[in-house]
């Protein structure tokens, strides 16, 4: 274990990078999921078709393929775009952080689309009718009835999506981001102790997923707190 001394700070900063990717992709994932669910529930046939294509494509292709395609693809597309304005530009560098964040948010967002759609459909029609009877407007119904009921239904699957996001951050090392797996590879090259270095990465990921699992369990308990008095 003494091989690790001197690498702690690298692991620490790499963990911060992973957490940053997680936060950024979580936000994007929720946005993609909500847009997708809204499109699937809308009356527009075109929006439905687009949302269906989105979920089929991103649920049917390997994650690593999406990450590589978005990273290299966006570099080429942006280069072509910038060359229109300034032909002297040879190559535009896309930051792997954002390419990777965007890619994993798109992937998990396609799963979240289905979760959110199901959760919105799972809201009791009786609650909506009660809200109408009480004279609540559409917006009020949405904020006070639909959202509180819907997030409780979505939470268990949503927790799994958060775990998928954390685990997918490991893929971003493939496009050269300085995160945990990348640090472990560098440390292995210097110390010649691959098992020690990669096990630490595994333990850090296990720690992050444990915290998320406990957080979701806490939220679920909070979501049920109004039911406890009935028992």
């Amino acid at each position: 274990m003494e091989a690790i001394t001197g690498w702690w700070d690298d692991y620490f900063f790499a963990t911060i990078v992973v957490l940053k990717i997680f936060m950024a992709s979580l936000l994007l994932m929720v946005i993609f999921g909500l847009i997708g669910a809204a499109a699937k529930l809308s009356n527009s046939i075109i929006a439905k078709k687009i949302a269906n294509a989105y979920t089929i494509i991103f649920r049917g292709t390997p994650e690593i393929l999406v990450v590589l395609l978005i990273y290299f693809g966006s570099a080429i597309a942006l280069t072509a775009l910038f060359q229109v304005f300034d032909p002297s530009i040879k190559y535009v560098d896309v930051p792997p952080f954002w390419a990777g964040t965007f890619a994993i948010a798109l992937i998990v967002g396609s799963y979240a689309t289905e979760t959110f759609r199901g959760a919105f459909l799972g809201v009791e029609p009786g609650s909506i009718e009660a809200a109408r009877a009480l004279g609540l407007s559409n917006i009020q119904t949405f904020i006070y009835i639909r959202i509180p009921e819907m997030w409780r239904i979505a939470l268990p699957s949503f927790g799994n999506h958060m775990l998928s996001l954390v685990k997918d951050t490991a893929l971003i090392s493939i496009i050269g981001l300085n995160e945990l797996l990348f640090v472990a590879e560098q440390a292995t090259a210097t110390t010649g102790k691959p098992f020690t270095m990669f096990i630490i990465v595994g333990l850090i990921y296990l720690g992050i997923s444990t915290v998320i699992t406990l957080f979701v369990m806490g939220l679920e308990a909070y979501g049920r707190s109004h039911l406890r008095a009935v028992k």
Partner: protein
Amino acid sequence: MSFDISLILDSLPKMLSGIGLTFQLLILSGVLGLFLAFVLLLMRLTEKWYFSFPAQIFIYVFRGTPILVQIFIIYYGLPQFEAIRESIFWPILREPFGCAIVALTLNTGAYVSEILRGAVLAVDRGLLEAGSALGLSRNQRFIYITSPLAIRLGIPPYSNDVISLLKSTALASTITVFDMMGIARTIVAETYAPYEIFISLAIIYMIFTFFIQKGFGYFENFMSRHVKK
């Protein structure tokens, strides 16, 4: 930026030559993983803590870490130990293909055993009580009542897991296995045409996903053929 059709036509046969390896990865680790999942399930269903606790730890660890990290630990990490290099497993763990199979098997085994447990626990208690009222033993109840019903309940989530496994096989390309993904990455490195190559490969994977879904759909219909629609 242009879309080069002739390049796709050139590289498609090359990529499809890796289809065999992708299938081997999928089927070998799928079958071994199912067997492992069944063992883990039996360990968890016993009420002995020294069986169920190790199984729970195994599932927790393999579901809580990225599959890519697991692949790297097995491929790069294990040869650090002299004992591994001299053991009988070395011929398997020396090859990237063997490591990929081991990692995918352990990973999918952990996920599938949770699916199976959910399916077993979802079997209606009333049916099991009816079974014991008819004088069936514990083992008979498991074989004749729990198993057929649990298989039917487990098919939809299991088909999703097989699709995840198919997608995970692409990760074997990171440890120099030349499956479809590995070949595609070499072609992209040579030609620098990510759009053409990766999008056509994505379509190939989507076709597979479609067939896996259809296949399991038929199997589910077959298993529930006596259920009134």
